[in-house]
């Protein structure tokens, strides 16, 4: 080999190919998660795009009494009663903070702090899901009720499914944390899960703003 | 392991293609040219096509020429024992071959935008306003007055759709609005060099002017957007008349329509016979025909010659489409009647125009290889 004269730094290692992931920086799973989330952002962008297209071609929005009748129009008027949704927003945002607390804890090798943070996050996540299920039962309209119902339930439904996915990931993390599998040096799975959880939180903020405020 | 003997195969083949392409444009039998346009807008598009085609052909010959030249000139020879010069690039040529295509496409963009503006231009007061209604799988046309109300109305005052053929005055601006009650279709007349989609829930409108010199001509038109099993047969005709003839024709339609109740939109007249008679005298004979399990219940039918008759067609196949077409002589003969395709379970009363005595075949156009029978007219 022409490289034989060099010292065995990484740059000239004869088995460089095996010594992967030595470039430091972000780890493979976390980069993978970030990229995956990019694709998720685009997925929701597609749904939001559909929502805004339908909304732009429906005047007024939400459809008024002339279009869908008095009763339905009242139910569609989410702006009138955004309080439960606002409460859910608070729940989810708080859970993002507790999740971050857990990360900071494990970065300092505080395993107790990790378990505590993840447990609270998980509980808040489940609370959110229960709250949303309750909200669904109170809305009085469904997926089939016009474009309004279709877009509302598709957007919030897919977000809900992502929260559910997040809580499952959190449960696994909690289980592994209690089994003591994470340390300051080894906790990629926790970092990845928390990034995902923040993403789910951000999507909800966007949803809440468009559906209830905008 | 290399075959160092040069292979000229690639170059010879590439040359063949060039020859093929060249002969295509020279002889113009179908050729690389659109049909001669027959509308003012079509002429603009044709002119734009000329420009695009010329530039494209130039680029094609130059670039293919370089490839073929390189292939022949720089093939490895037995004497090539040294490496060729290891050239990594040259910024100047990169700039040149970025800028030149940019200039070309900028020019093409500008001329096509200009043409677009003339093609899309709409007149303040078009002489005629037609609404084309595209439904699976037939076309019909309504004529509107200046007030936007239908001119051709039945005794009940409802608008009458004239099936199959659109009649327009040559040399005058026609406004066409496109309407679909079901799926997306597209209004396409090859000789207009133009098409426009017929989108449900979104009305498209455009103007066109058939050349005055083309009065008396008929142009073939066809649905150009896949719309289901009958898509390939969803054709229509555009008939250009002189303005005077057109006025007479329109007047005739108006009086005729008032006289008789409009028929239910069932079978459309076969293309070729203009939709001049939206009305048929009530038929004396009615035949029953049922489709079940992708088969007709009868393999032969009889009908009287030279008088209209009805076919009461029942489709018993849940979710499956069937219809009845009548072909002359054999199942692949000329279509003389084209019934609307219906999705089962459903029933239609097809009104068949008089047929001369002879042997015909009735065929479901959705299942033309299996659902066949003979119709004897005497």
């Amino acid at each position, binding site marked *: 080999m022409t490289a034989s004269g060099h010292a065995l730094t990484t740059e000239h290692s004869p088995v460089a190919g095996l010594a992967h992931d030595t470039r430091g920086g972000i780890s493979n799973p976390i980069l993978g998660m970030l990229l995956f989330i*990019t694709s998720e952002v685009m997925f929701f962008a597609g749904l939001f795009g559909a929502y805004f297209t339908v909304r732009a071609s429906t005047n007024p929005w939400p459809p008024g009494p002339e279009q869908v009748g008095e009763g339905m129009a009242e139910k569609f008027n989410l702006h009138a009663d955004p309080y439960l949704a606002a409460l859910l927003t608070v729940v989810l945002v708080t859970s993002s903070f507790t999740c971050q607390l857990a990360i900071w804890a494990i970065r300092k090798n505080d395993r107790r702090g990790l378990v505590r943070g993840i447990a609270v996050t998980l509980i808040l996540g489940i609370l959110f899901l229960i709250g949303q299920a309750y909200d669904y039962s109170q809305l009085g309209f469904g997926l089939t009720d016009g474009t309004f119902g279709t877009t509302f339930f598709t957007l919030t439904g897919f977000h809900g499914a992502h929260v559910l996915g997040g809580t499952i990931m959190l449960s696994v993390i909690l289980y592994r944390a209690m089994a003591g599998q994470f340390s300051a040096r080894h906790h990629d799975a926790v970092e990845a899960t928390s990034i995902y959880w923040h993403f789910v939180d951000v999507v909800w903020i966007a949803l809440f703003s468009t559906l209830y405020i905008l | 392991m290399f075959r160092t003997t*040069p292979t000229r195969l690639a170059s010879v083949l590439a040359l063949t293609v060039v020859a093929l392409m060249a002969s295509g444009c020279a002889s113009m039998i179908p050729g690389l040219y659109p049909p001669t346009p027959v509308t003012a807008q079509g002429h603009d598009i044709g002119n734009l096509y000329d420009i695009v085609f010329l530039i494209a052909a130039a680029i094609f010959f130059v670039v293919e020429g370089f490839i073929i030249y390189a292939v022949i000139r720089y093939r490895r020879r037995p004497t090539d024992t040294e490496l060729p010069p290891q050239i*990594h690039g040259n910024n100047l040529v990169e700039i040149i071959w*970025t800028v030149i295509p940019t200039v070309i496409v900028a020019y093409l963009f500008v001329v096509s935008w200009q043409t677009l503006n003339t093609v899309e231009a709409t007149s303040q007061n078009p002489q005629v306003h037609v609404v084309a209604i595209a439904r699976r799988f037939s076309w019909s046309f309504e004529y509107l007055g200046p007030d936007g109300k239908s001119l051709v109305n039945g005794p009940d005052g409802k608008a009458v759709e004239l099936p199959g053929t659109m009649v327009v005055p040559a040399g005058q601006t026609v406004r066409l609005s496109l309407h679909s009650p079901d799926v997306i279709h597209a209004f396409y007349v090859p000789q207009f060099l133009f098409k426009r*989609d017929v989108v449900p829930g979104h009305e498209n409108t455009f103007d066109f002017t058939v050349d005055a010199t083309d009065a008396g001509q008929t142009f073939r038109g066809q649905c150009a957007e896949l719309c289901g099993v009958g898509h390939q047969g969803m054709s229509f005709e555009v008939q250009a008349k002189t303005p005077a003839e057109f006025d007479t024709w329109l007047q005739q339609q108006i009086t005729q329509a008032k006289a008789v109740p409009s028929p239910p939109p069932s079978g459309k007249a076969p293309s070729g016979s203009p939709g001049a008679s939206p009305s048929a005298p009530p038929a004396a004979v009615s035949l029953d025909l049922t489709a079940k399990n992708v088969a007709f219940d009868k393999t032969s039918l009889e009908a009287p010659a030279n008088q209209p008759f009805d076919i009461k067609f029942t489709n018993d196949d849940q979710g499956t489409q069937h219809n009845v077409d009548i072909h002359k002589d054999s199942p692949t003969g000329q279509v003389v009647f084209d019934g609307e395709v219906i999705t089962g379970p459903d029933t239609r009363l097809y009104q068949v125009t008089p047929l001369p005595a002879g042997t015909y075949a009735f065929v479901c156009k*959705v299942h033309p290889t299996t659902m066949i029978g003979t119709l004897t007219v005497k």
Partner: protein
Amino acid sequence: MATTALHPAVPAYRSGLYEWITTTDHKKIGILYVVNSLLFFFIAGLLALGVRAELAQPKVQFFAPDVYNQLFTMHGTVMIFLFIIPILAGFANYVVPLQIGAPDMALPRINALSFWMLPLGGILMFTGFATGGAAAEGWTGYSPLAQRAYSGTGTDLWDVGLVLIGTSSILGAVNFLTTIFKMRAPGLTMFRLPILVWTVLVTSVLVLMATPVFTSALIMLFIDRNYGGHFFDPATGGNAILWQNVFWFYSHPAVYVMVLPAMGMVSEILPVFSRKPLFGYKAFVFATAGIGALGFSVWAHHMFTTGAVFLPFFSLMTFLIAVPTGVKMFNWIATLFRGQLIFATPMLFALGFLTMFLIGGINGAFSAAVPVDFALHDTYWVVAHLHYVLFGGSVFGMFAGLYYWFPKMTGRLLNEALGKLHFVLMFIGFNLTFFPMHMLGLAGMPRRVADYSANAGWSDLNLLASIGGFTIAASMLPFLWNVMLSLRNGEIAGDDPWEANTLEWATTSPPPPYNFDHLPEIRSERPLFDLRHAGAAHSALPAKYAETHS
């Protein structure tokens, strides 16, 4: 080379079925991708032969319109989603880790998952034929035609199958990007990456950004069809154009997903068989990135006739995309200039790519001129365009890659004479099939018709196209025969049969698990060239490849 000291790894690839099903080795997964995709290529090709048989003559002979519509819908869908996209991903899977000196992909288990979703999605889609008809709305699945009212279960299966295949693509893209960013060998800086790796990088970004939008569209369609949603059906307040917008927002970038890796392969092959470096390496990188970026701003050129999009903008962007593509074309040609061209089979296919993709690109530019597209849209002209870019471009490029890397994958060379026969037959058949379609389109023949009028004047050209279609099919026979012969007793390839430039040729053929036990030092984008001509990369050394190193 030092690597030849490893015992030939050929036997490792004869291992059992179980090994293949459970493998997470990127090389085996790559081969699985390629074989699976070729299988679907033949199936979709047979469907195309059905189309050509039906159209050879006017009148309905073999397939009723309802079956015909299923034929071309499945033909288009399978060719695109189960053949060309995955086979390019398969080559990338095999080659990229080797070219960057990595032992495997960054996320090997996800890699295996990505692959296995493909046959699953494909089988789902094909079960449509057994449930009263496969999808029949064209590969574009326009609503409202694709709504429940007009189509059956086959469309649901098509929809779900595509969601699976799309997810597979997305996971694959995540994997490629992580691998390329994180697993490069020391010394392999971004601007020393082989062009193939660059194209895979840009392709992966396109997949990552575009495919999820398509997934969302498919899910909305599924909701419309099965749960009473109202996204796309105007009859219930939805918007028919919305589907087209989301579909093409994905499917235009997707056409570059279908061609960029093929361009990458050609960019690897032309220099090797011209014995020169690639001309304008950086220009290639920027052009690839430029195509990727512009690719997101042209989608509505498929919707020029809908009367619902802003025409001048999309026209301009569509024209502009010819510029970076042209830069590539000119750099390829400059690579040939003053070289010593060797016409081995991979080179022939690469030249086929250049000559044919050029035609496809130029006839695409016709459609960028909006009024011209008013005439050409939805006619056979577009069918000609899409096959010149997809077949003349991607498929020729793919075969170039197949002949080029086959020795690396199997350790054996393919027979040159049979390879050339394959090329000649395919080249002739291809032009016979698709060139006449330009004329048919101009003459007004719409696409997606099962039948046409005998007096329209289209019969001769259609017959010609059908003869061509069967010629292409015939060209597959020498190819398959070649592969079988070579697998049995082909000439042993050795590490580097082509005197190539990139790292994959520095290890054994086929490479051992984890690929390398030694890597040469990397000082340029041609590490193996540097190795052969140690220290004198820029002078013209005698072409005697001394076996002195190591």
